[in-house]
């Protein structure tokens, strides 16, 4: 059980040091090869940028991408490479406008929340142009923001150039890494084809049903250019699957080896970024403290989720004592006891929503990683995790700083760090400073802005939707688990994660409702619009506020290092940082967790039988 998570994390830690050094070299433009990429870089270079210019460039480019994405999505019926099969004889139509907005925002912000199902609703052209382009770009934006913040912290006179940074990342980091991973995935069985769905005759005839003329129906197997999307989905911590089932689908993730590859793929850059931070600052001890704190938190999350899901059978199959429910205003209700079902889960844990080929602890491991790292790909259905195991992914998204998304996670951690420095400094009566720069009112305001936008964007809409029919009528599970679905959706949107308690009814599908295989969800538009806005706000505020914070620090004179300086590169400070994250995180999110997974665990199970 533990071998799999330990080897995945161990392997990534080993790889992160050389990769981190390489990233630092590339971002500082050190010894980059000449050639066509360098030629394009020179066309892009608009000169050194201040933090405002850098942020403006970032916003402008994102706006361009948003318009581009919206147009590509809206033009789906007219675009080429629109595959047809017996399920969709006319190809893929246009998605509903709210879903287009949601999807354009979602892929722009590295969230990849999917209110559609890839194999049903997108043409190969949309997958290759909209999805792939957005995945490469979105992966770079947070990365660039972090690089600029580091340049500010190390006291550079300017923040670099956004366009050059983006291009270097795409051309020298993400494309080569994706090519290598894509080939490895194809070797294991991931398809790469533009042929339409395969139609096969089942071995036992008629088992897929019988057509109107009495002939057995074929099994229609959706495929496509999966191997092009899968690598950048993981490496860019994007997480939006080619198929509805994401990395649980055998074509996206054919065996246990590719599962390890996908886990390492989603971890490697967030890990390496922390190393890059230390290398670029030339203060490796500073990043070692942050790395250790993040690794501690991540290990705890993996340990909790795996233990609660792989060592505990699904409570639905266990015996339940009888219980009496007393609720104000309702008559007392006694629920009779339930017997244990004769089901052998030994060595398997909770297998509902899990694939067998990855190994028994692979589902919860992936769940903990993908949410801590803000990837959002899933290889099991999080909705069906054991109630207490569901806390793991929820906390990962709510803290959103345990490695976190590309760059953004580390930026969030720096915000916690500034707050930690401030709190600790006040407590021991020393001037709070970080890297020799004084932390003052302006920095604290920016840090609080970056910190608070996340809980507000999670808890506000969750409360609103839980109180309205938008939320109550969209849940797939009763009781507290239904509340968890709503809480999960907004945590995921605000953390730019993109995974879901997927039972939630938030899919409308094609705008022409008659072309949909399943009935459009009643409240899909409310979900599309709300989560779309949450994703945009929670993406750009926590990127821009720290940019301003770093610029404000960069302008300050460095105070001399004395015996009175509070050091931020020691194990002691590591504990301070850990405590800050845990305390703030607990204060912000524990009440919501008590209403969701904890109440779910306390029962009754099953609920409302």
């Amino acid at each position, binding site marked *: 059980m533990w071998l799999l998570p330990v080897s995945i994390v161990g392997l990534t830690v080993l790889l992160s040091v050389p990769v981190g050094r390489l990233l630092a070299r590339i971002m500082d433009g050190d010894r980059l090869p000449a050639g066509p990429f360098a030629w394009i870089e020179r066309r892009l270079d608009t000169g050194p940028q201040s933090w405002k210019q850098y942020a403006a460039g970032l916003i402008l480019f994102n706006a361009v991408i948003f318009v581009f994405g919206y147009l590509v999505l809206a033009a789906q019926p007219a675009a080429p490479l629109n595959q047809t099969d017996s399920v969709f004889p006319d190809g893929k139509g246009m998605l509903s406008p709210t879903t287009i907005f949601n999807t354009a925002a979602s892929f722009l912000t590295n969230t990849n929340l999917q209110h559609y199902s890839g194999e049903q609703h997108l043409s190969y052209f949309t997958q290759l142009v909209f999805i792939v382009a957005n995945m490469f770009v979105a992966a770079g934006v947070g990365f660039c923001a972090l690089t600029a913040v580091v340049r500010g912290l190390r006291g550079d006179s300017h923040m670099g150039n956004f366009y050059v940074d983006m291009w270097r990342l795409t051309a020298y980091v993400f494309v080569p890494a994706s*090519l290598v991973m894509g080939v490895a995935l194809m070797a294991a069985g991931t398809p790469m084809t533009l042929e339409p769905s395969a139609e096969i005759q089942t071995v036992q005839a008629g088992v897929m049903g019988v057509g109107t003329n009495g002939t057995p129906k074929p*099994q229609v197997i959706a495929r496509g250019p999966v191997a092009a999307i899968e690598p950048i989905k993981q490496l860019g911590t994007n997480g939006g699957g080619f198929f509805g089932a994401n990395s649980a689908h055998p074509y996206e993730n054919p065996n246990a080896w590719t599962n390890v590859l996908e886990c390492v793929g989603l971890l490697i850059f967030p890990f390496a970024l922390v190393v890059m931070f230390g290398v670029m600052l030339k203060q490796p001890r500073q990043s070692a403290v942050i790395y250790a704190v993040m690794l501690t938190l991540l290990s705890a999350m993996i340990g909790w989720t795996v233990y609660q899901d792989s060592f505990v059978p699904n409570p639905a199959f266990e015996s339940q004592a009888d219980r009496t429910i007393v609720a104000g205003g309702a008559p007392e209700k006694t629920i009779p006891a339930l*017997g244990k079902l004769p089901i*052998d889960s030994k060595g398997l844990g909770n297998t*509902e929503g899990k694939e067998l*080929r990855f190994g028994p602890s692979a589902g919860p491991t992936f769940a903990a990683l993908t949410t801590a790292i803000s990837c959002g790909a899933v290889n099991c259905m999080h909705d069906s995790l054991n109630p207490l195991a569901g806390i793991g992914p929820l906390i990962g998204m709510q803290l959103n700083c345990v490695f976190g998304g590309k760059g953004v996670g580390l930026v969030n951690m720096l915000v916690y760090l500034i707050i930690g420095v401030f709190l600790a400094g006040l407590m021991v009566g020393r001037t709070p400073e970080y890297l020799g720069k004084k932390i003052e009112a302006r920095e604290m305001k920016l840090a609080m802005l970056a910190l608070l936008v996340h809980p507000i964007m999670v808890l506000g809409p969750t409360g609103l939707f839980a109180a309205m029919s938008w939320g109550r009528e969209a849940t797939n599970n009763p009781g507290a688990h239904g509340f968890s679905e709503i809480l999960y959706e907004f945590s995921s949107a605000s953390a730019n994660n993109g995974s879901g308690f997927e039972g939630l009814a938030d899919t409308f599908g094609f705008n022409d409702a008659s072309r949909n295989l399943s009935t459009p969800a009643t409240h899909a538009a409310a979900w599309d619009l709300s989560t779309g806005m949450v994703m945009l706000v929670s993406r750009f505020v926590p990127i821009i506020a720290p940019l301003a914070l770093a610029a404000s620090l960069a302008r300050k004179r460095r105070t001399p290092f004395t015996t009175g300086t509070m050091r931020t590169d020691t194990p002691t400070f590591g504990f301070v940082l850990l405590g800050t994250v845990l305390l703030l995180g607990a204060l912000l999110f524990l009440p919501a967790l008590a209403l969701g997974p904890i109440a779910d665990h306390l029962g009754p199970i*099953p609920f409302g039988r």
Partner: protein
Amino acid sequence: MKNNIRASLILLLATVVLCCGLYPLALFGVGRLLFPSAAAGSLIEGKGGAGSQGSRLIAQPFTAPEYFWPRPSAASYNATASGGSNWGANNPKLRDRVCQQIGPILVYKQGSRSAGAGPKPRTPQQDIDAWFAAVPDRAAAWASASSTGPVNWARTDLSGEAYGLQGEYIRQWANEHPEVLEAWKKSNPNADAPKPEDLVTPFFASFARVHPGRWPGVVEVAQTDGTKVKRIEPVASDPAVHANFFDLWVSDPANRDKAADLEPVIADMVTTSGSGLDPHITLRNALSVYQLDRVAAKRAPSDSEADSTRAEIEKLVRAHAFTPLAGLVGEPLVNVLELNLALDERFPTSAVR
């Protein structure tokens, strides 16, 4: 500003050319050249150009007793609409689905007290029937206490607006027994005309009064002209009783000893996968009495060869087993489609009894 717009557009163009053009083309070329089968979806070609028989990676449904069965699928094995059940542990549908699946097939452990000695062991289904008949209104109690099972029963074979046998039977019963509608009106004073599924609770209460200890089961009746029609009649034993009442039976403290003697089902046999297309089952599941014994009984050419056939099939299953990550994680698995194809090759279906 003009500079910035120009740079943004060049960056967009360069990204699209590199990432949406050159990069997929390179992968496409490598796939075509080095991994042609995987690139097309790992399809298994049939003999004599009969088209593909399936994909090695995608679960194909099998329901006939002579085949090994894959895991249940929340996506109905539809490989254009992958997905899981997304049911949490607290969802009554989850426990109900499992009980519905195992109730009719469970057996007692070999040699256990509940199975008894003798050549034909006693089955849990016989015990459920006896338990059901012992109290006249079990069906009424079940219909009022459960939230999913009774409604599902009323909606069996529902397609569009047309109800199946069960739904029509409820309608007809309600017409002939006015107390059903009266009872419903009493609890729903302001509602419109009820659908069959709205009437299950009063229907079963009324049915239990008329036919105590009986169940409205589907039976095939031969007509005078030789054709057979299905209709609903009060019966003492029915697979629907085993499916619907297993949970109540196993939860009844009086049946505790019998429940302890049940042969356990391996978890993957009753749980749906994340994609609904998981092509594997555990080796333990394949070799359990719920799979191997059924397949072997069907594939044995004659009774005298039953044991040898079972042993041979077991060997075949074990030959197909592998453990993920070169044996490092989890337990041995088998690919159901590949196993069934090998099974058809070794024991042709023409010999299936």
